[in-house]
């Protein structure tokens, strides 16, 4: 199968959907003439004149306009260059987009996607490196997606564009230019369905974003010692594919959750709580968290590397759970 990057996969998803539906437009900083800071929207302004808007640096108005357009039936995809910038837009994302269907008594549908690059790994320090999936996932009314492969990014973005709910779509920045298999023919991936990235019998590792490939590397290494690790990528943070995770834990009896975002009040806590509620009797060891440290992301390359889980951190916890 052909191999393309996640940025190319995102570009294809946008292009395919915009070709099908003249009622979709995209807006954001640098997305038109420049083709996006990470090339995700390259060539789209030429192909879709009037439907690709270069905006001023106005995150609040970008989100407000995207929401307002979606509210009136025009599907909008807004790009935030860094998820950190979306804080300025959070009023519209959270107070407007997430709540209006409910507070308007079901009168509104909001087909809007807020795309944003996410995470650390490029020495951009504390205001350009955060992982905000849990902040958004905490808000009823939002759907939150974080793909870890070009294949998942394309299929999920297409689903997000066609969903009539506001979706926050987090794209791990360090994965933009990594290649993966993506078929030529069209496909979508349903929102809310996780994926077993590697089947295993001894321990379940739930990982998101960049942590998926790290967990897979650990699984590969441990397989050589006869340890069988199942790696699950929920892909959608909200709604979470609880069923898939619980079924896996019932099989393996062990759970480790790995994420880049800080540990405290993080996704691992939520997933572990769900498993404790639904599969406590199946557990053979205490569930464990492997997560980012509770620090802002530092500039220094070595410190930055240490701020989020490394393969050896994941490996150590997997081994500990098997003792």
């Amino acid at each position, binding site marked *: 199968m052909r191999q393309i990057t996640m940025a190319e996969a995102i570009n294809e998803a946008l292009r395919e959907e915009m070709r099908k539906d003249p*009622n979709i*437009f995209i807006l954001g900083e640098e997305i038109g003439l420049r083709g996006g800071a990470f090339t995700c929207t390259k060539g789209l302004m030429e192909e879709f004149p*009037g*439907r690709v*808007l270069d*905006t*001023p640096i*106005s*995150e*609040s*108005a970008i*989100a*407000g*306009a*995207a*929401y*307002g*357009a*979606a*509210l*009136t*039936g*025009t599907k*909008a995809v807004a790009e935030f260059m860094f998820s950190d910038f979306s804080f*300025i837009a959070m*009023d*519209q994302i959270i*107070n*407007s987009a997430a709540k*209006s*269907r*409910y*507070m*308007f*008594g*079901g*009168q*509104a*549908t*909001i087909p809007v996607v807020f795309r944003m690059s996410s995470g650390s790994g490029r020495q951009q320090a504390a205001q350009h490196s955060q992982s905000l999936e849990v902040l958004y996932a905490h808000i*009823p*009314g939002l*759907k939150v997606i974080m793909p870890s492969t070009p294949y998942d990014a394309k299929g999920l973005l297409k689903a997000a564009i066609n969903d*009539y*709910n506001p979706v926050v779509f987090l794209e791990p920045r360090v994965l933009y230019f990594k290649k993966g298999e993506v078929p030529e023919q069209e496909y979508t991936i349903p929102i809310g369905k996780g994926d077993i990235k590697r089947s295993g019998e001894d321990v379940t590792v739930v990982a998101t974003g960049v942590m998926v490939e790290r967990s897979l590397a650990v699984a590969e290494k441990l397989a050589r010692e006869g340890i069988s690790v199942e790696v699950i990528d929920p892909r959608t943070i909200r709604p979470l594919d609880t069923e898939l995770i619980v079924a896996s834990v019932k099989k393996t009896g062990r759970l480790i959750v790995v994420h880049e975002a800080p540990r405290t009040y993080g996704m691992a806590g939520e997933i572990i709580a769900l498993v404790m509620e639904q599969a406590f009797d199946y557990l053979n060891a205490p569930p464990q968290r492997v997560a980012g440290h509770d620090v802002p992301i530092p500039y220094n390359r070595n410190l930055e590397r240490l701020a989020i889980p490394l393969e050896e951190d994941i490996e150590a916890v997997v081994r500990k759970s098997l003792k």
Partner: protein
Amino acid sequence: MDVTTSLSKEQLTKMYYDMWIIRNFEENLLDLYQKNLAYGGMHVSVGEEAIAVGACANLKREDTIVTSHRGHGHCIAKGADLKGMMAELLARKNGLCKGKGGSQHIVDMSVGVLGAQGIVGAGCGIAVGSALSFKIRGQKNVCVNFFGDGAANTGSFHESLNMAALYSLPVVFICENNGYAVSTSFARSTKIDKISVRAGSYGMPGVTIDGNNIFEVYKTVGEAVERARQGDGPTLIEAVTYRWYGHYVGDPCTYRPPGELERWKEKDPILFLEKYLLANKLCCQEEIDGLKAAAGKAIAEALDYALASPEPEPADLFTDVYFEK
């Protein structure tokens, strides 16, 4: 003003009637609030009716409005269902928002009321989105955004007006300057005398008008709506007015200088039109009384409907969080 002669008697009496509907609706609310039948955050626009009615008289059904926390009047003027509104304010199941939105989130998508906003300034961005939607779809419609002087000091206002001008969007920004942002007076929150001068810095026309003169509102908004409809971009209109009952229902208004309310009551926008209708012999006193009585009756009917409406059921707590196919 020549605009007065261009309005038919029917148009003028409709404006007069609509203003009474708004006032009756809101003065009833004050009473319902006292009785704890309506509750929570509630902001009334009594004294500001000419802006809602004068502005919306220029709009078509397919045009849209985005309003603020003080939005009952705008919703009514745009044609929102009165019974559904009253039922919503009484938190009933067949309210426009099924009893889950209340005063600050009143919406009626069927007539282009895109919702009241509980966050000051947020509406400006949403209006830009509605206008963008019209432009992308090639529709010759207009979005009118009502907000207060408080909103004019938010970042959203600045970003949105710049963006609306940049893309020449069909939107009319109407700042109802009622002199106070909560209890902070305009002079204590803003260095300039007129909000409208900001329009120039965004590259759009701006004007300050008497918000209690319905003819001035109708004419100014009409020109701005026409400009927007023709694709010539947004306008900022500052309509100077006053809210009789303060920021929220129950506001003791201790921040007002003595005599201020009384001076503004002399400039009652409804009385202004009434005097005009009588002086120009467009209506006799009997007709005026008839219109007032009809407005009172319409509100009484809306109230009867609302009072007869059921409360939401516990299971309704969980509906409409997400759209499900």
